[in-house]
């Protein structure tokens, strides 16, 4: 698959996630949609890293110059993955507590009862 095709797919994932956040009614589904969106963003970093090549960036004297993948975006997105995952976990715990009094977890209902 060509690079631009992959790029289009990645952006499609990001948009699907973003629209999921808006159009899904259930709070859990919204959080999952945000996860889809962040998966798209992570994939985009990987795509950018792979522009120059797809080999693991480990220098090997015997092989000579190979088209290595750029290690910087990968290293950076690793941090973002960890942060994204911890935020998801935190939000899901919050949702668990909310679900005791709002078993349907419909955002509009929760919002109505908590907007003064």
């Amino acid at each position, binding site marked *: 698959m060509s690079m631009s095709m992959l790029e289009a797919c990645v952006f499609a994932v*990001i948009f699907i996630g973003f629209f999921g956040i808006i159009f899904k009614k259930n709070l859990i589904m919204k959080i999952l949609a945000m996860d889809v969106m962040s998966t798209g963003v992570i994939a985009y970093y990987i795509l950018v890293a792979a522009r120059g090549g797809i080999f693991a960036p480990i220098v090997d004297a015997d092989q000579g110059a190979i088209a290595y993948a750029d290690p910087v975006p990968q290293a950076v997105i690793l941090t973002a993955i960890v942060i994204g995952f911890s*935020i998801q976990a935190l939000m899901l715990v919050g949702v668990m507590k909310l679900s005791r009094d709002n078993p349907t977890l419909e955002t509009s209902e929760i919002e109505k009862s908590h907007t003064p």
Partner: protein
Amino acid sequence: MIDDITIIWILLPFVVGFSIYLLPRWNRYFALAIAALSVVYSIGLLWSLEPFTLELLDSFGVTLMFDELSGYFILMNGLVTGAVLLYCFDKQKSPFFYTQLVILHGAVNATFCCADLISLYVALECIGIAAFLLITYSRSDRSLWVGLRYLFISNTAMLFYLIGAVLVYQASNSFAFSGLAVAPKEAIALIFLGLLTKGGIFVSGLWLPLTHGESETPVSALLSGVVVKAGVFPLARCALLVPELDPVVRLFGVGTALLGVGYAVFEKDTKRMLAFHTVSQLGFVLAAPAVGGFYALTHGLVKGALFLTAGQLSSRNFKVLREQSIPRAYWWVLVLACASISGLPFLAGYSSKILTMKNILPWQSFALNVAAVGTAISFAKFIFLPKKTDPSLKILPNFYGAIVLLLGGLFVTNSFYLEAYQPSNILKALVTIGIGWLAYGLIFQRITVKLPRVVEQFEHLVGVMSLVLTGLFWLVLA
């Protein structure tokens, strides 16, 4: 030498933050020491006035940048955190609260000195998590919803920011802020969307009133005084580093100054009024990015004092407060803080406002003067509250400690810009306030306008992001 001190100062809050969780008896003192350290460090920074840059781990590593601008922001962070800690001193908060407070302090400090996109991302996300845990400290359903809403909005905005960051990397092979100059336009739009949302600017900032209004008193003081500036500071810094971005930032400054004050003059709830007014004041910071630091400092001090005092009053409704009248001690605090933010001479709010007004472009001045009148109108609501003597009222010494720190800071920092005291400036400030109070007495006190809150709904907040993004594309492409 200075490098080592800087690195220790940045790391210490995180080390101390986690370790004071294990020392429940000492946590308050350690937390106060961290805030004091930031104050000392920032005064040193402002005193030496020599900008310097630290590059850790060569060109792909962390870039830190220190100058006058960051000095003011760090001073603000130290003073407001210190005041909030004093306020909470005998409130029996759990060690968890202090841990989060100190980590939040450290993360905010980090945003005020980092100069590359990824360190900024990490610091902002850290702020998001710590602020969420502070907002939900009471564990009530409402606080959980408010916190979740905050975390959701900020995390979604930061995902857009990340896309922008990698586009900058693609163009300049580095994540440093200066790469924005060669970055594609869409990268700038995406990064700005993230920062505008995080900083509560213009329509992206409409999440802010509910969050700041519904949090506990000390937490809203901290959020409104310090935490939103973590999103504003990078915008100001980008405007200074990349001249092409300067007009965009200034435009957003003017827009948010008017939007926030437009809501604030009609608001009947004390804490929501203060929160809307924060949206407006951030506009003044961005309207003249080069001198925004001083304005942010005075605003942080005032907002901290106002939120802490508003939390002591018997009601949040201005109408009820007018009928019941408020204790004289609180009234004095409110008057001093309101006088500063409205720009009455002899308080730092006056000199910072004059300094900002001096550094704005001609096209901005009309809008910002209107916003200044609006500020005077909004705060007349506090100033003209009836006062009473209440002998049964007991004010705890720690409340006074916090207020003395904040208002004392206002008196002292007033001396940072003594050139402001010229007859024409004083006259202008007095006329602005006079018009504002007159308008309040004649018009705004009598009318009741209830602005719709539909734009503050969660789905609309997320939807607005796509609109702002589209708007930003047009703005930076133009």
